[in-house]
């Protein structure tokens, strides 16, 4: 029946639109065309290590790490509650938490604008109770909030799917042997949930690290992350070499995190989510 040649059109498509573009990133990251000739160069890769860009990379890591940490602290209890046996309407709640994963993050980020801006709802509320206006936007807080908001479901889902699979008899055995609640959690539940935690952390950290929309909209362009630099290189500056080198950096990080997930993570929670 299905013959191997059925895949030929896709193989051609895949080569042109997936393999060649990847090759082009490497090509532009490592060549220079300034003198009319295409020459191998490490200049673009070196450029990443200029203080200016190192600062941006550092800031991206710092903000993504904080966002990931907040997601973890907020998400782990949520995953535990969802996974607990006595929680009713579990499936509905789960779908409600997962649905935003598939929704346009641009819209979700934009939705915070009307809450955070100076004449926004939160500030109007603060003024009306006599606390006065607070600058909520155009700062690190707003960008981190945007990241947490966008990527929280990516933390909850993998942890949840590991927690529900934990064998209840192990927990019971620990209790029978005299462990209290905290001890059961620290010695049994938490270590067993590590694969989900690893997946959750990577699935939150990587998109936070590569975003340019959240920082652009919620900081009004004041805070620059790796994604913003890449965007500028391709839309304004036209320095494809630097843009490609930075894209390559993101790809290397994705690659490392994939190895990490494959080794320690829960592989069943790929990019797919619950759908």
């Amino acid at each position, binding site marked *: *029946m*299905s*013959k*191997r040649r*059925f*895949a*030929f*059109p*896709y193989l051609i*498509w*895949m080569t042109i*639109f*997936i393999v*060649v*573009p*990847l090759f*082009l*990133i490497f090509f*532009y990251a490592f060549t220079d065309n300034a003198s009319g000739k295409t020459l191998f160069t490490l200049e673009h890769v070196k450029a990443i290590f200029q203080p200016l860009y190192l600062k941006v990379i550092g800031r991206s890591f710092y903000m993504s790490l904080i966002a990931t940490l907040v997601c973890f602290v*907020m998400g782990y209890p*949520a995953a535990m509650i*969802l996974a607990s046996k006595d929680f009713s309407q579990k499936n509905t*709640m789960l779908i*409600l938490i997962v*649905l*935003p994963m598939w*929704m*346009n*993050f*641009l*819209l979700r980020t*934009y*939705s915070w604008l*009307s809450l955070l*801006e100076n*004449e*926004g*709802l939160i500030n109007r509320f603060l003024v009306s109770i006599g606390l006065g206006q607070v600058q909520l936007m155009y700062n690190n807080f707003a960008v981190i909030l945007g990241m947490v*908001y966008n990527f*929280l479901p990516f933390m909850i889902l993998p942890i949840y*799917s590991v927690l529900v699979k934990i064998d209840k008899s192990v927990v019971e055995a620990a209790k029978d042997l005299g462990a209290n609640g905290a001890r059961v959690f620290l010695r049994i539940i938490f270590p067993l949930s590590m694969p989900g935690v690893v997946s959750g952390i990577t699935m939150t950290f*990587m998109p936070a690290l*590569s975003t*340019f*929309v959240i920082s652009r*909209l919620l900081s009004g362009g004041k805070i620059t992350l790796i*994604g913003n630099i890449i*965007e500028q290189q*391709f839309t304004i500056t036209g320095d494809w070499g630097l*843009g*490609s080198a930075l*894209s390559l950096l*993101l790809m290397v990080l994705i690659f490392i995190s994939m190895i990490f997930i494959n080794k320690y993570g829960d*592989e*069943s*929670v*790929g*990019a*797919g989510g619950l*759908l």
Partner: protein
Amino acid sequence: MKKLLKKLYIFLILLFLYAPIIVLIVYSFNASKSRAVWQGFSLTWYQQLFTDSKILSALETTFLIALIASVVATVLGTFAAMGMMKMKKKTFETVRTITYIPVLNPDIVTGVSLMMLFAFIGIELGFVSMLLAHITFCTPYVIISVLPKLYQLDMSVYEAAQDLGAKPFYALRKTIIPQLMPGIVTGFLLSFTLSVDDFVISYFTTGGHVENLSMIVFSMARKGVNPKINAVSALLFVTVMILLLIVNKRELSSKKHAAKNKDTLLNREKQIIKYRRNEGK
């Protein structure tokens, strides 16, 4: 007490996730342009939406691209999945890994790499380049949806059809395709949703010559909040929500029919790996 606290916590998380979107939608019905003051229900912004030629053409672009891209991706992906089944293990693994690249790569990297490709092969940025990009990131999802269905395929019907004199292609259409249909439809719906939803890849592959709804939202949102964007957002949100619910409902009901095997994207990857391992033995 403990139960109540648990419920309260989940409620707070859901409030955090949905409150901004609900506020956004509510304010799209606000009569006043000032977004913080509520001046009564009105459909002004929706009316303005449907007289704004820029937004209308973006609406057309969004759905035209989504329709063509998802149809092409579905055909391309379905045949690709069928062909992949007959590949040797090593080739299969390679093709599968490459197929996953657009799924796993950050959108910005996919976007800029395709932008460079179009410059490299001399395709002008615009509608066509955007369409090609959308087909590229949709096809992997079709393949991921169809592959597991191929493992469950009953081949004897196809052989019987041929024994009874059906030409190979006719037999394929009458016996194989119907069995694959649930996977194909899921792949199509996913492609359509992802295409309507996409911003980053479209942003880099249109060069500002064509705009979809997300791009309109982005360029307007840069200048601050505007009730008209709230209206566009509300429409986009509702569209995507409905599409997602359809996909989910299909998955859930097919789960009921085949209760033994949860057929979600979550499990598909596992099924593929398991199948290939058995194949290798």
